[in-house]
C-alpha cells in the first residue's frame, strides 16, 4: 500500500497539520519509506490470535461517584492563549 499525494493531503487534513504544497512530495516519500518497512508484518501468521491492546494485564478499576475535582476555573483558564471572562475562545464556528 503506497500513498499518493492526495492521500498525503487527506491524512494531513485529518490530523489538522497544514502541509504546504511544496512539502507534499517530500512527505510522501518519507511516509512511504516507513510504510514499506512496516509492511514486513504482513508475513506474520496472525490467524486465531486475539489482539493485545495494552501493556497492562489487569482489568479496569472503577472509582466511587464522588465530586472530588473542578471548581477552579481560573487554574483551568490560566494557560489559555485567548479567553473572554471565564470562556475559552476560538474563531467563530458556523454550524
Amino acid at each position, binding site marked *: *500500500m503506497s*500513498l499518493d499525494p492526495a*492521500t*498525503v493531503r487527506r*491524512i*494531513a*487534513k*485529518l*490530523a*489538522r*497539520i*497544514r*502541509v504546504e504544497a511544496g512539502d507534499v512530495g517530500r*512527505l510522501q516519500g*518519507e*511516509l512511504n*519509506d*516507513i*510504510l514499506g*518497512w*512496516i*509492511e*514486513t*508484518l*504482513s508475513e*506474520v501468521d*496472525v490467524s486465531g*490470535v*486475539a*489482539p*493485545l*491492546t*495494552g*501493556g*497492562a*494485564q*489487569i482489568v*479496569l*478499576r472503577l*472509582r466511587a461517584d464522588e465530586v472530588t475535582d473542578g471548581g477552579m476555573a481560573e*487554574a*483551568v483558564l*490560566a*494557560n*489559555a*492563549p*485567548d479567553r473572554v471572562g471565564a470562556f*475559552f475562545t*476560538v*474563531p*467563530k*464556528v458556523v454550524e
Partner: protein
Amino acid sequence: MLTDLTITAAAGALRRGDFTARELTQAHVDAVAALNPRLNAFITVTSERALEQAEAADAALAAGEAGVLAGIPLAIKDLFCTAGVRTTAGSRILEHFVPPYESSVTANLLRDGAVFLGKANLDEFAMGSSNMTSAFGRVENPWKRVGDAEAMLVPGGSSGGSAAAVAARLVMGATGTDTGGSIRQPAAFCGLAGIKPTYGRCSRWGVVAFASSLDQPGPFARTVGDCALLLGSMAGFDAKDSTSVDLAVPDFAAACRRGVAGLRIGVPREYRADAMPEAMERLWRQGLQWLRDAGAAIVDVSLPHTKYGLATYYIVAPAEASSNLARYDGVRFGRREDGHDLTELYERTRAAGFGAEVQRRIMIGTYVLSAGYYDAYYLRAQKVRALILRDFTEAFGQVDALLTPTAPTAAFAQGEKMDDPIAMYLNDVFTVPASMAGVPAMSVPGGLDAQGLPLGLQVIGRPYDEETVFAVSQVIEDAAGFSAMPAIRAGVAA
C-alpha cells in the same frame, strides 16, 4: 568530589553530617552552571528552587524526619508535569506551558525529599533515539571517542538530557520515560544504569503522553543500587492511572544483594544480529560468563517474533500518539497560530508547533487508524503484539531473566543517521520487544568499545519481577567493575 558520589553514599554521608544537602546541591548547581551551556542537558534550570528544597532537606535531616532521597539532586525529564515549573515535552507547542499540577512520580520523589535541579532535555514528545528532535536543541553526550575530541556524540533518546546530566555529574540521578527504549538506550550510550519497570509499576499520571500503552517512567543513575533507590520512590499504585497496578513496592535495594545463584538466564537467539559490532558481541558473551561464574545457568531461548517488534512498534506508537497529541490544538494551553476559522487555527498551530519527526509520526498514526487501513495495520500490529508477549511468556516458562545487548551500537555522532528515519528507528531493535510485552528491562554498563565508548547489556525480567532484574544487573555491575568516566564531567574542563 561531591558530584562523583553515588546516591547511596551521599544519603549515608548526609545522615552522618559529613556535608549538608545545601552543600551537595550547590556543588551540582555549580556543575550545571559550568557545563549545561555546552551539553544543553536541561531545558529549564531551577537552581533557586533546588537550593530551597535542599535547605528543607537539611531541616528534615536535622529533625530526623528525612525521606530516603532527602537532599539528593535529580534531573526531571521535561515530560513530567511539575507544578509551577514550565513543562515543554521538548516541543515549541508547549514552550510556555506551566502545569498547575505535579505528576505522581515527581510528587513521590518530592515526598521522599529529592531536590530537582531542573527539567531535562528530550526528543520532542519523546519521539526519537538521539535527542536531535528537541525544539530546544540537541544534547551533547559527555563521552568522547578516544582521540576524537571534535565529534559530538548523541546521548541517545528520548531521555537524552536526563542521561547526559547524570553521566556528566550534573545530578546524581534522573527520571526518564521509556516507550520503546527511551531510558535503556540513552543509559547504554552514556554509561549509566537505567530501568524501564513493568508497565503499570510507575504512574503515568502527569506524564505527557506519547504512546499510552507503552509509556513507562523509570530512573537513571550511575549504579544499579541507585536505580533501585530511585525506583523504590517513584513506583507505587496510583488510583488516578487506570493502568497502574495495585501491588506493594518491593525493597529493590535488598533485591540487588540477592545474587544469581540458581537462576536460569536466557539468551534469545534472535538477538544475534548479523551486523552486530564485535565489541558488542564480545561483551554479551562476557556478560553471560559473569552470570555463569556467579552461579546462574545459561539457557538458549527463542523469541521468534523479535524481528517484527520494531514494525509493530512503529504502528502502535504513532497510532496512539496521533490521538494523544490531538489535544495540542492551540485552544486551552500552549502555542496558538491564528487562523480565520477553526480549522485553519488548528492546522497552522500544529504545523508551527510540532517538529518534523512528530508531524511524521502523527501522520503515520493517522493513516494506520484510518478507514480501510485499520485492519491491515493497527489490528494486525495488535495481534503481532500478542505474539510478542506470548514469546516472552513462553521464554519465562524456562528462564528467570533474559540477557541481551541494549543497543546494536555505541553512541553515534550527531548528524549520523539523520537523513534516514528508519536507520534511526533501528536503534531500538533490542529494546522495543520488552516494551511491547510490558515487561521490566534494565540497561547496565558492561564495558567500552574500541573507541572507548560505553556499551550496555539489557536484563529483561518477568512482569512485576524487577527484583530479579536488579539482582542480575547488580551481578553484572559488580563483575564489570565499570569505572570509566566521560570526558566531560563536573570538575573536568574538557
